[in-house]
C-alpha cells in the first residue's frame, strides 16, 4: 500500500484503503479502481491523500545490506546475530 497525493492519482490505480470525509463517513470503499471522473470528484471534495495498492521504490539492495553490516558492527553475541540473520532474510524477501 502506498500513500499518494491526489495529483499523483491515475486511472487504473486500486484503492487500498477506503476514503473518508471530514465527518467520518466512508465515501469510497477500498478495492475500487480509480477513474478520471472519480479522481476529479475527490479533488473537488478536498481529499488530499489516498492509499492505493502497490509498492514504492526501494533503495538499492547493495546499499541496504552494506548499511546493515555497518549498524551491526559492534555485535558479536549469538542472540543479536540471529536478529541480524533474520533481518537479512527479510530484506531478501522484500527485494524478491
Amino acid at each position: 500500500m502506498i500513500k499518494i497525493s491526489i495529483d499523483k492519482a491515475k486511472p487504473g490505480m486500486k484503492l487500498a484503503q477506503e476514503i473518508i470525509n471530514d465527518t467520518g463517513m466512508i465515501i469510497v470503499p477500498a478495492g475500487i479502481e480509480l477513474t478520471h471522473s472519480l479522481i476529479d470528484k475527490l479533488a473537488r471534495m478536498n481529499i488530499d491523500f489516498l492509499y492505493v495498492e502497490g509498492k514504492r521504490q526501494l533503495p538499492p539492495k547493495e546499499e541496504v545490506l552494506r548499511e546493515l553490516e555497518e549498524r551491526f558492527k559492534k555485535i558479536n553475541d549469538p542472540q543479536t546475530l540471529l536478529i541480524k540473520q533474520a533481518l537479512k532474510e527479510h530484506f531478501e524477501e522484500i527485494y524478491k
Partner: protein
Amino acid sequence: MNAKVVLEKIEKIENLPTIPSILRKILGIIEDPKVSLQKISDFVASDPTLTARILKMVNSPVYGFPGRISSVNHAMLILGLNALKGLLIGVSVFEVMKKNMVGLWEHSLSSAIYARIIATRKNLSSPEEISVAALLHDIGKVILLIAFKEDYEKIIQSVMAKERFLHELENEYFGITHAEVGGFVAKKWNFPLKLTEPIMNHHRPQLSKNFELETAIVHLSNILTLSRGIGYSGDIFVNPVNVSVWNLLDFKYEDIKDIFREAEDPITSSKEIFASDE
C-alpha cells in the same frame, strides 16, 4: 556534571523557557494524581490541534484499530486513561523531536509498532499500553534536549567518531542516561509503573521487577527498530539484546522474521502519514 545536577534541573522542567507551550499545558493537567478522565477529555476536546493529533495517532497503522475512531471520548474508551495520558505526551513532544532531532519521532513510532506486534504475539492484555511505553521510551532524550541542548547535541555527535552507544556516553557525561531521565519524568508525571518501568529500564531490562515482560518488549522493540534502520535515535550501532530478555520472550528465528515482516507495512505507511504535515 552529575545525576543530581541533571535531575534538579529536570525537576523544574515546566519552568524552562525551551519547553513547548503545548507540553507545558498538558503537564499542568496530567501531573495532578486525581485528574479525572472527564477533565482530560474536556481539555483535549477544547484544543483542536491536540484533538487532531490524538485522532491521527489512534487512527494510524501504529495501532491498527479496525474502523475509524472519530472522537476523543471514543479514543479514551478504547485506550484507557493511562495510555491516553502517555499518548498526549507523545503527540506534544512531536514538535520538539522534529525541531531538534529529526528521526527520533520515526524511531519512536517504529518502536511503538514493534511493541504492539510483540505484545500481541505474547497475548498481553493491553498491547496499546506497551505500545505507548515504546512510543515514549526515548522521552528522556527529548528532556535532555530541552534542558541541556548544547551539551547533549555534542554527545550525540560524538557517537559516530567514538563508535560507542549513546547511553554509555550520556552516563559518562551526565552520570545518568536518557532511560533513567525518562523514567524520572514519567514518575513525576504520575505515569503508572507499567509505563515508567519499561521507560526507565529499556537499556537495563534486568532491573525491572514488576513489569519484566513489558520492559523486555520495549527493550527488544528498540533493538529491532535500530536493526531495521528506521529513523534516527542518536544511536548508530545496534545495541546487543539482553540475554534475560531473549530467554524471557523465547522467540525463535522464524518469530523474529515474522515480526519484521508484519511491521513492514505499518512502519512505511505511518512514516508517510506523519511526514506529510504538522
